[in-house]
Every structure is written in structure tokens, then in C-alpha cells.
């Protein structure tokens, strides 16, 4: 469903958010989103609070608003799903304009849209301000299994190389008069995918041999360590802690 997923979203900058270490940002944003997801759907005011928080965080990145908005299209299929919900859900019905819809479905749809949208803006705040290699180092700091970190490291390192391969194949196809318009174009596109697999796999083998000849013994040396100060943690925790206070207020009141 939808179009391709495109390149990394990192937007070069020097804002406070850009300067925070990747693992600190990751923990803060993940905790924030967990708080948001744990909030009951009916607490509209709480979601308003979270929206203000996440917009403040996004604003602090100094990334242009248009850049964020353009990337929010990933949410579209689920917006459609959420909009259908009031019509198919069970429970007591309410009248909204000309339609009779399920009240439960309406609340659920609101909850889905609010949570998914806040989640996307939060994730974009991370993605636009964190360089891929910093994120990999951050996941390593958070004790993600070493092998998984290494695989991700290779994926991030060769991302541009392989997507460029794909782009060159597209240029080559089109300079020979090919346009993909109907299903009849599938065999050509699929053999492009096949060629891309062979290229990628062989590149992996060459990279492995090159690593062996440079002394690789099954473990990449750690060349950069991320360091976070107490001040970094305090600053980043503003987002999840304030959100948790909003949630706690809701529980108590």
C-alpha cells in the first residue's frame, strides 16, 4: 500500500534536539509514546496536552514545518482505516449529521488518530534530528544485541549505495524507452529486483572478504562511544515526565 519509503529523513541542523545523544532521545521519545498509548481514548484533554508537548519538541528541532508535514503521509492508510471505524464498530449509535454511527467506534477512531498522529510527530522529531550512524551507536549503547546492531550498521552504511544502484537501473530502463504503466511491465521490474539482489549479495560477499583481509574476526571494533551528561538526560526527560504528569493528573482527578 502506498508509495516507497524513501531515504533517511535526517535534516542537518544544530538545535538543542540535534545535539542530544541519540540514545537519550530514543529513550525519551519511546517513553513519551508509551505514555500516550496507555492513555484511555476518552481523555481528549490529555491528548491536547500531549499534542502541545510533542509540537513543542518538534518546534525545538528548528526543522521547517513543511518538512514534517510532507513526511506524515505514511499515516494515510491508517487514517482511512480509522475513519471507517465509526461505521463498522458495535455498540450504541449516535447521530452525527446525516449518519448514524457507533459511539464506541467514534471514540476509538479519535483515539487511533490522536495516538497515531502524536506517535508519528514524535518519531519524526527523532528521525529528522538524528544521523543514521548515531542512531546505530545509540542502539548499541542501549544494549541491543551486537549482531543486530552490526547488521543495521551495514544497512545504514550502504543505504545510499544500493538505492543509487536502484536509481541507475531506473535510468538505464528509461533511456531504453521503458515506461511502467500496466501489469505488462512487471517482468521487467521483477528482473530488476532480481538483478538488485544479485548485486547486493555479491557486494556483501566482497565487503566480507575486504573485512577479513583487514583482520575482521567476527566482531566490529567500537570506534565511537556516545556520552550523555546528566544535563542531557534532564533536558530530554522533560517530554516523557510532563506527559506522565498529565496522565497521572487524569488518573487522580
Amino acid at each position, binding site marked *: *500500500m502506498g*508509495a516507497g519509503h524513501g531515504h533517511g*529523513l535526517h535534516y542537518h541542523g544544530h538545535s538543542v534536539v540535534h545535539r542530544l545523544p541519540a540514545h537519550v532521545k530514543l529513550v525519551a521519545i519511546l517513553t513519551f509514546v*508509551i505514555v*500516550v*498509548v*496507555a492513555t484511555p*481514548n476518552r481523555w481528549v484533554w490529555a491528548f491536547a496536552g500531549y499534542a502541545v508537548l510533542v509540537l513543542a519538541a518538534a518546534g525545538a528541532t528548528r526543522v521547517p514545518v513543511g518538512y514534517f508535514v510532507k*513526511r506524515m503521509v505514511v499515516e494515510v492508510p*491508517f487514517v482511512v482505516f480509522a475513519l471507517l*471505524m465509526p461505521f*463498522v464498530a*458495535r*455498540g450504541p449509535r449516535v447521530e452525527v449529521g446525516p449518519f448514524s454511527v457507533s459511539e*464506541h*467506534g467514534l471514540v*476509538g477512531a479519535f*483515539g487511533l488518530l490522536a*495516538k*497515531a498522529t502524536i*506517535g*508519528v510527530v514524535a*518519531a*519524526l522529531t*527523532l*528521525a529528522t534530528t*538524528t544521523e543514521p550512524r548515531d542512531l546505530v551507536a545509540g*542502539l548499541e549503547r542501549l544494549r541491543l*544485541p551486537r*549482531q*543486530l546492531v*552490526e*547488521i*543495521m*550498521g*551495514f*544497512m*545504514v552504511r*550502504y*543505504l545510499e549505495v*544500493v*538505492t543509487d544502484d536502484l536509481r541507475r537501473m531506473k535510468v538505464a530502463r528509461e533511456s531504453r524507452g521503458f515506461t*511502467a*504503466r500496466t*501489469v505488462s511491465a*512487471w517482468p521487467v*521490474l*521483477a528482473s530488476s*529486483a*532480481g*538483478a*538488485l*539482489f*544479485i548485486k*547486493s*549479495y555479491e557486494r*556483501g*560477499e566482497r565487503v*566480507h572478504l575486504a573485512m577479513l583481509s583487514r583482520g575482521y*574476526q567476527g566482531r566490529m571494533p567500537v570506534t565511537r562511544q556516545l556520552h550523555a551528561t546528566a544535563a542531557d538526560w534532564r533536558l530530554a526527560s522533560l517530554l516523557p515526565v510532563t506527559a506522565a504528569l498529565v496522565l497521572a493528573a487524569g488518573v487522580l482527578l
Partner: protein
Amino acid sequence: MHVPDGFLDVPTSVATGVVAVAGVGLALRGARRELDDRTAPLAGLVALFVFAAQMLNFPIGAGTSGHLLGGALAAVLVGPWTATLAITVVLLVQGTLMADGGLTALGTNISLMALVGVWVGWGVFTLARRLLPKQLSSVPLAAAVGAFVSVPVTAGTFALLFAVGGAVDIPLGTLVGAMVGVHLLIGIGEAIITALAVSAIIATRPDLVYGAKPLVTARTLTIREEQTA
């Protein structure tokens, strides 16, 4: 098509997270058997291939297009353990660097696509391969069957999860019916693309296709004796 934040409640997300951690943990051990110390660079490049292949748009007509999901394809090409790792890493990168798929839904997305998608695809593929004639040309066909089944099963699993931990009370039959119905159509596309891609690879490098290994090694070298004038 990645599940965003808030679609499933916290207990369900935690449960799928635990399943994902366990499954990926097993895959980390299994992939070492498939690839030994080549795991990191090769699985990394395979992950990139899946990621890039998802960017290829396949036109359906009337201006719409779809793209490959690639779970079954990856399993047939590099084996199910490596495919699990590759798809997991693709989802990690998409979730953290592209805001595609919710961060709290990462466990759900990994369970659905890297575990259910890959292993159902692989299981059906091996079954079909056993039933079809023992020749190389059966592999793309078996891969197509695997891909065709894996897509609606993955969608159906999501529908079941939504019934357990979804935010809204939708009649289970309606939801499963709609999800599986739509994804049967998507599965047909996935099956055709998977078969075409696998047969393109088998035409040039059958040795690279993990799912064709038993058939490739079974081939014996034939020496053609021809008289030269």
C-alpha cells in the same frame, strides 16, 4: 502498511514485543548456521535489498501501483533465519529513521512481518517444493505459493491481534473478512512479483537461491561428447 502507535493497547503491544524479542533471539542463533561470520555484512546487504525492492513501484493500472513486501521472497532467497533478521532490521530502520511504523508498535510489526510473514512464506514454500516436480523450474512456482499465502495470513494475524487488543470493538468476522479479502488480492500481486524475481535470479545465479539449494546440488555435471571436425 506498518502498524502505527495506538492501534493495539499496551498489554498486547508488550506481548507482541516479547514474541518479537524471542523470535529475533532465535534467528540470531539460526542465522549463524546459515551464514557463520558472514552474517553481519550479508544480512545487512540483504536487508538493504528488501528495503530497496520495496521502493520499486509495480503499476496496477489506472494510475495506481503497489510494491513488494518481500517477506517470502527474502526467505526463499537467503533462508528463513537470515530473512527474519533482515526484515527486522528493515523495520527498525523504517521505524526509527523514517517514522514509518510506530515505535511502540515495533514489536507488533516485527512479529507480523519478520516472524509470521517470513515463516509462513517459508513453510508453505517448502511444502509446495516437496509436492512439485524435483526440478529447478518448480522453485519460482513454490515461492509464488509461499508469497500468496503469507500475505493474507499476516493480515489475518493482525486482525486477530486487533480483536484481542484493539482500541475499538469491531465484529471479529467483519474485520478478519475485510483484512483477509483485501490481502488475498495483494497476495496475488506479491506472488507474481516473487515468482518473476526468483526465476530471474535462478536464470543467472541459481547457487545464490537458498530455497533452490537441494535441487542445485542434486544436479550432476554432464560431459557432452561432441566430435569436432
